[in-house]
């Protein structure tokens, strides 16, 4: 009843990798967070921040009989403005609550007063539009002839900005959780100890994580980028090869970081705390939802050194600007450094029992 010759499916590395897949796909929550959630988030953000056709700016004109009616008529000739006569109190109210961008008060002595909040960009724009419309109506003519061409380029919208950020965030989350959680869970259940009591190669055990992460990565990246491309036309201007290379290196780096965080922890609570401690600053600083350049210059060296910042910058440069290898090199170097340092430390600190 003994057997010696076996097929490739009975190679330990294949079996270990199959275990990784089974454990992942038999956990519906994990599948949701890794594959479905990023797509839903992209859909939500893409719809909420979609670019809308320009809406006319609302203007309140304070009732002054004939004078105010003339102002409303003059403003009505501009397609960009929607003017409405209001009593003084109601106009002040509308301005305060943001229902109108500016209030226009014709003076009895002739001339006009603009009331607006100069800290609101739309109010400043409204002032220029209103002034332009009224001056033209009063007979001003332009000295320079201008023509307009309106441009709506994919790549400059919010959804274009946020998709590479979500992709980076997802690579970080699945790398850290995928390794950290599984390893600590196996240590807690004494399964790690049981495994090293067999002739199993420890290298193959770790390699099974790398192999399974890399194949899942293709689905993960494909689902998110594919959805963003089809639903919102988010551009992928760089080569697919460079996009995949960035994702691959990032997945390895975050996997190594996950291994490092899991190298000693004995409880799920312990490793969860560590993960959140590591991920939270990156969610905020690394330019997932808004640009990292909004933070003060003093913080920039720290922010630029974070792995997720490098990943997001590289993904944006490749997808949105079609950057080549030379442009991506500094970011790739930062990611590779995180991979090397995390992996070296993890191997040194790792406890099997």
């Amino acid at each position, binding site marked *: *009843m*003994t*057997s*010696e010759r*076996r097929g490739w499916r*009975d*190679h*330990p590395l*294949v*079996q*270990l990798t*199959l*275990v990784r897949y*089974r*454990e992942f796909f*038999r*956990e519906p929550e994990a599948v949701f967070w890794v594959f479905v959630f990023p797509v839903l988030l992209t859909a939500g953000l893409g719809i909420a921040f979609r670019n809308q056709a320009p809406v006319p700016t609302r203007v309140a004109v304070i009732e002054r009989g004939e004078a105010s009616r003339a102002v409303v008529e003059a403003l009505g000739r501009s397609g960009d403005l929607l003017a409405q006569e209001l009593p003084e109190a109601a106009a002040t109210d509308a301005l305060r609550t943001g229902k109108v961008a500016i209030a226009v008060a014709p003076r009895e002595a002739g001339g006009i007063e603009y009331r607006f909040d100069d800290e609101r960009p739309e109010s400043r724009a409204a002032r220029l539009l209103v002034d332009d419309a009224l001056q033209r109506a009063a007979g001003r003519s332009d000295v320079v002839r201008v023509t307009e061409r309106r441009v709506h380029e994919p790549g400059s919208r919010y959804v274009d900005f946020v998709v590479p950020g979500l992709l980076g965030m997802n690579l970080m989350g699945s790398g850290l959780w995928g390794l950290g959680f599984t390893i600590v869970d*196996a240590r807690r*259940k*004494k*399964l790690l*100890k*049981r495994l*090293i*009591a*067999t*002739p*199993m*190669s420890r290298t193959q055990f770790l390699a099974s994580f790398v192999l399974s992460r890399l194949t899942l990565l293709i689905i993960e990246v494909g689902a998110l980028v594919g959805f963003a491309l089809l639903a919102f036309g988010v551009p992928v201007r760089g080569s697919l090869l460079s996009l995949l290379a960035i994702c691959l290196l990032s997945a390895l780096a975050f996997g190594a970081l996950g291994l490092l965080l899991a190298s000693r922890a004995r409880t799920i609570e312990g490793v969860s705390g560590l993960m959140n401690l590591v991920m939270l600053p990156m969610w905020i600083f690394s330019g997932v939802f808004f640009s990292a350049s909004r933070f003060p210059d003093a913080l920039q060296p720290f922010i630029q050194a974070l792995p997720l910042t490098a990943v997001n910058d590289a993904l944006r440069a490749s997808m949105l600007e079609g950057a080549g290898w030379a442009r991506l090199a500094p970011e790739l170097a930062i990611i590779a450094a995180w991979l090397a340092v995390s992996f070296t430390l993890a191997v040194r600190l790792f406890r099997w*029992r």
Partner: protein
Amino acid sequence: MTGTAASSPPLFVRGLRKRYADVVAVDGLDLEIRAGECFGLLGPNGAGKTTTIEICEGLTEPDEGEVLVLGRRWGERDRELRSLLGISLQETQFSEKLTVGETVRLFRSFYRRGPTVEAVIATVQLQEKRGARVGQLSGGQRQRLALACALVGDPTLLFLDEPTTGLDPQSRRQLWELIERFKAAGRAILLTTHYMEEAERLCDRVAIVDHGRVIALGTPGELVASLSAEHVVEFALGQGARVDEGALRGVAGVAAAARRDGTWRVRVAELHRAVPALIAELHRQDVQLTELRTHSATLEDVFVELTGRQLRDE
């Protein structure tokens, strides 16, 4: 098998010591298992059994002492040595999302030679559960799965750490039958347990371990015979009753008498002489008997005799 494995004992341990931060777990322990023997380490929780077996399994480093497994030391060609051992740890939880078949196949893949996955599953009688997830198995079925994973490499030496702890009597008996069948195939086994029935039924020789040392060694029969009194009479008295202990020891045929938790335990050589004499003595002292039991002396009584404590403090 290799020449060294055939000529040297399956397991040889001398002067083993292991200290953790604040406790000495193993304190100068010696063992030698003979070929084809099932050897039991019997002792209460915390006696150092698990530490000892995990040092033998190459999972824990000893502070001192010599360990030869199949004639080899840990630290040289470990993977080759591991392929000759079958190991069942205390409280391993296999991945709940895998099926029985997938788990056995995974473990089988680590060994170059051994029985087929189907054969191992049949050995531990889990054929019907082959496609079931580990999460749905009962405690006894999980222990049989652990045994299957220990057998996949056709081991020369099998380590079983508390294989039946926490199981119901029926599952325990089922597991004993499996271990007996493995024994019949002539392989050596090192087993730890705190169940004396288990040691008595399965083990050819038993080492009683307490505070990290072997305090008695022999076949279960020899150990019981060492008590020089083969039966134990246990009795309890009515509330407030007092007994003249000296007079009790003076009864003909009584080898020892001791009181613990309100119950007297008296060891005697011949029941048919000692019990009537004991009852007559209690009658003479005019104390009321509320309970009376007798049993043949067991390893448990040996342990009580040697340590003054019970194996299981329940």
